[in-house]
């Protein structure tokens, strides 16, 4: 390699390293949270006031498991096909397409102060949030969103139910 080319390659590497160091120092906490499994999205404070819009609270994998142990209801907001293929054990399917049809049964069987967790296909998928908002509209006061969704559950090696996964 000619010395000029070597210099160019070296400077290329330096730019990469410099940029990465810059980015990581600005986002240090976020990256650390991600690697230690903490919730990365800013948690929305739920302060109940008249006329306030309430949001489902984002929770991470650890919190989801904890809540499930305490008997939380878990809702799969994805399509029926995806749900049938694989879902978090004990999850109930409540999606946008069949919302009107499936909601009544849900309202009957799940009390309004139950702890509810919604999930879908992970980050970039807003359906869990959508369904969460709708449940809040229906009067559910304890709604959470598991943003990592099925992908994070699966990646952690946790068991799934469904035709595609292990029963």
């Amino acid at each position, binding site marked *: 390699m000619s010395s000029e080319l070597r210099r*160019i*390659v070296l*400077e*290329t590497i*330096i*730019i*990469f390293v*410099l*940029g*990465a160091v*810059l*980015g*990581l120092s*600005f*986002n240090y906490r*976020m*990256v650390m*949270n*991600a*690697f230690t499994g903490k919730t*990365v*999205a*800013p948690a929305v404070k739920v302060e109940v006031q008249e006329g306030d819009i309430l949001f489902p609270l984002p929770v991470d994998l650890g919190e989801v498991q904890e809540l499930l142990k305490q008997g939380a209801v878990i809702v799969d*907001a*994805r*399509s029926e096909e*995806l749900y049938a293929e694989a879902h978090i054990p004990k999850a109930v399917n409540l*999606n*946008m*397409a069949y919302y009107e049809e499936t909601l009544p049964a849900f309202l009957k069987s799940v009390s309004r102060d139950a702890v509810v967790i919604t999930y*879908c*296909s*992970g*980050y*970039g*998928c*807003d*359906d869990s949030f959508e369904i969460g908002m709708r449940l809040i509209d229906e009067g559910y006061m304890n709604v959470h969103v598991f943003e*990592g969704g099925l*992908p*994070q559950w699966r*990646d952690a090696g946790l068991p799934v139910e469904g035709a595609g996964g292990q029963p």
Partner: protein
Amino acid sequence: MNRWIAIVYHLCRLGLGGLFVYAGLIKAEDTVGFARSVANYKILPYGWNYLVAASLPYVEFLAGLLLVLNRKVRPAVLVLGVLNLVFIMALVSVLVRGLDIDCGCFDTSGEGHTTAQWALFRDIGIMFLVVATYRLRSWLVSEKQG
């Protein structure tokens, strides 16, 4: 002749540099949102999506800035070329897997594919700019020395 080459060179480098300064800034502004986009490709493990989201925009911005300032042009262009190559491979991987990178829950089929395809064409175009800028720069530098 040299004049024209210089003009084309400056246009290429300013276009490329400006594009990546802009791209870097936009992504740096919403790091978590960008992490979601990266996660959508389902290529990296959980934490690494955030690592990439944290560093990539700054690398883009830095390289783009160097191009705009006409400093360390070839290294900067190489950085963008490498990044672009990685993007292209990620897009090809998404298309090959038939992944609908826009959630896919209730999308009509084909939408996600179009997005990835368009991005692929765009990135191939960017690659041409990268190569052009690099070669024009090399040529101009050698002309000056010759």
